[in-house]
């Protein structure tokens, strides 16, 4: 798979799903979409597709097609979709042209808010605890969902994934979460927000700061494990190989 195909999957299924959490946890984002009642689909010709639904102050992001979406955005290629994510090229509006004001002004405000957390200002990361917390939560989710896409489409990750035993991996920030769970099966991987009992392997991150440093590639993970900032147990080869996959996220989502 080419870089654009992998990136398109990451944009749709690892980045966009963060809107769910953003709307839940960020008051500014929640206020923005409090009265939205709209669904949108994103689909690439012969490529990946996702849809988003806003209603009752919440947001749901799903894989696949929604033929009845109020707004249907089409892309002629993965590259086209990726350029839209960089605000460099508009989508083709196949349905919902009457919602143009929403598309041009309201929705971008929400995605800007997402970008604010996911492409963080280094100073804010250092000084603002709430900002750091949001960045960490969203980056944790991005990592889990990105791992699924990379294991499916990135050639190097496909190779790594082929060596990972089947089972479940829990990544959890202590003391009470958030957490993500990866279900690793031969026929495909799945990510899920939240905890699981009796995983095959687990990685427990001591607090938000340690998790933030780990997810932003600023932690010597071997030191962190030795010092107890990160606790691993269970089927360690799952974690070793998952780590290699997570380390490839910045090649796409720098």
């Amino acid at each position, binding site marked *: 798979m080419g870089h654009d195909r992998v990136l398109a999957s990451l944009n749709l299924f690892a980045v966009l799903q963060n809107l769910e959490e953003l709307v839940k946890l960020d008051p500014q984002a929640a206020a923005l979409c409090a009265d939205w009642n709209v669904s949108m689909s994103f689909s690439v010709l012969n490529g990946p597709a996702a849809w988003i639904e806003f209603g009752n102050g919440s947001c749901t992001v799903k894989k696949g097609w929604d033929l009845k979406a109020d707004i249907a955005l089409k892309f002629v290629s993965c590259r086209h979709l990726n350029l839209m994510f960089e605000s460099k090229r508009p989508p083709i509006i196949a349905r919902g042209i009457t919602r143009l004001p929403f598309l041009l002004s309201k929705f971008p405000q929400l995605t800007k808010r997402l970008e604010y957390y996911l492409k963080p200002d280094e100073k804010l990361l250092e000084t603002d605890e709430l900002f750091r917390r949001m960045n960490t939560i969203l980056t944790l989710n991005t990592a889990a969902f990105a791992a699924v896409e990379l294991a499916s489409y990135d050639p*190097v*990750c496909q*190779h*790594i994934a082929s*060596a990972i035993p089947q*089972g479940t991996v829990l990544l959890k920030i202590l003391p009470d979460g958030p957490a993500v769970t990866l279900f690793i099966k031969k026929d495909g991987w799945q990510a899920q927000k939240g905890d699981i009992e*009796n*995983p*095959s*392997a687990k990685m427990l991150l001591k607090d938000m700061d340690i998790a933030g440093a780990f997810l932003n590639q600023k932690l*010597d*993970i*071997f*030191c962190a*494990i*030795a*010092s*107890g900032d990160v*606790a*691993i*147990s*269970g*089927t*360690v*080869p799952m974690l070793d190989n998952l780590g*290699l*996959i997570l*380390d*490839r996220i910045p090649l796409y989502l720098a």
Partner: protein
Amino acid sequence: MTAYSHEKSRALFERAAKVIPCGIYGHFSPAPLIPPSDYPFYAESGAGSRFVDVDGNSFIDYMCAYGPMVLGYAHKKVDAAAAKEHKKGSCLSAPAPVMVELAEYLVDLVFGMDWAFFAKNGNDVTTYAVMVARAATGRKKVVAIKGGYHGVAPWTQGLGHHGVLEEDCGHILRIAWNDFDAFASLVEKHPGQIAAFIASPYHHPVYADNQYPAPGYWQKVQKLCNQKGIVLIVDDIRCGFRLNMAGSHVFFGFEPDLVCFCKAIANGYPISALMGKGALLTDAAKVFYTGSYWFSSAPMAAALATLAELKRINGPELMLAFGEKLCKGLAETAKSHGYDLKVSGAPSMPYLRITDDPSQMLHQKWCGLCTSMGAYFTSHHNWFVSTAHNETDLTDTLKIADRAFEMLKKEKR
């Protein structure tokens, strides 16, 4: 039995983390020691089968420095031989006569091998072996086993590991252990392109049960290699001199072209060796390969003394016998508490695993508990025994294991 504490180890590690990548890197990293809080990070001294950490805790050592310690720490004969050589000048502008003595000794000792080349680490000689095979055959591809470990050079690591290029492992073809048909298929698929087949004498991966060769496996591999001009390399770095003094290929009844030794060869002194058949001597000579300290004479003297002593006391037999008693005792202790402790691999370097929990968390806890009471067990890697392990060690170890199982059971309740 009270659990050890590790204040000095942790304080040192804090300092190390600031100035050394990983704090402690490589196979000595505490990361796979689960939980790390149960393990010492720094050792102060060792004698016989035991070592003492910087906090003064004493451990019956079942890792033996991950293999090099084979006669016991601070072994008098070996240390005296090394010290005598060192005093003469261990790193001079020309090799010492002991290099020739050691090569001759090894050629006499190891079955079927006609020459020896010395380096420092296992990785040095596995890489050299592959280079010799490629030089001899003019071919690129090397067949290795999935999960097999041959060092840290890029060709030995998998795609996706940091610092490893696709090109580094592009000619390494991995197949499952004991799958002769897979090897035969590769030979057919890549006619005239396979330079070498490399594997350890039996399969000893980490985090998984170890596996002996299936009946006839090595003999079939050898036959096909001989027929097709493929160099058969045995990585005897972990097993060497723990199964048979003449090489582990004698233990399993086959004849390789090249054999890699390290670990047990010099009881902890830094030296490794590649040995080969006479037919490959000229090719080996053509490959330029060297290192600043590869001619140090003290480790060579240590190797001579170690091998002579191992031979005198029949070290492999002693270790296999002790390992049998240890594994049997531990399995019985486990059973008495309602647990199943599975033993695989050679008794002189066994891999143990509590099967009651497939995630291995239970096994990790048990190994951690045993270590925190003085029996140094790891949960991810095969263990090693030495000729210094004795009946007192066995009794003490079984007591510790018993107590650890008891604690596991209590925790479960």
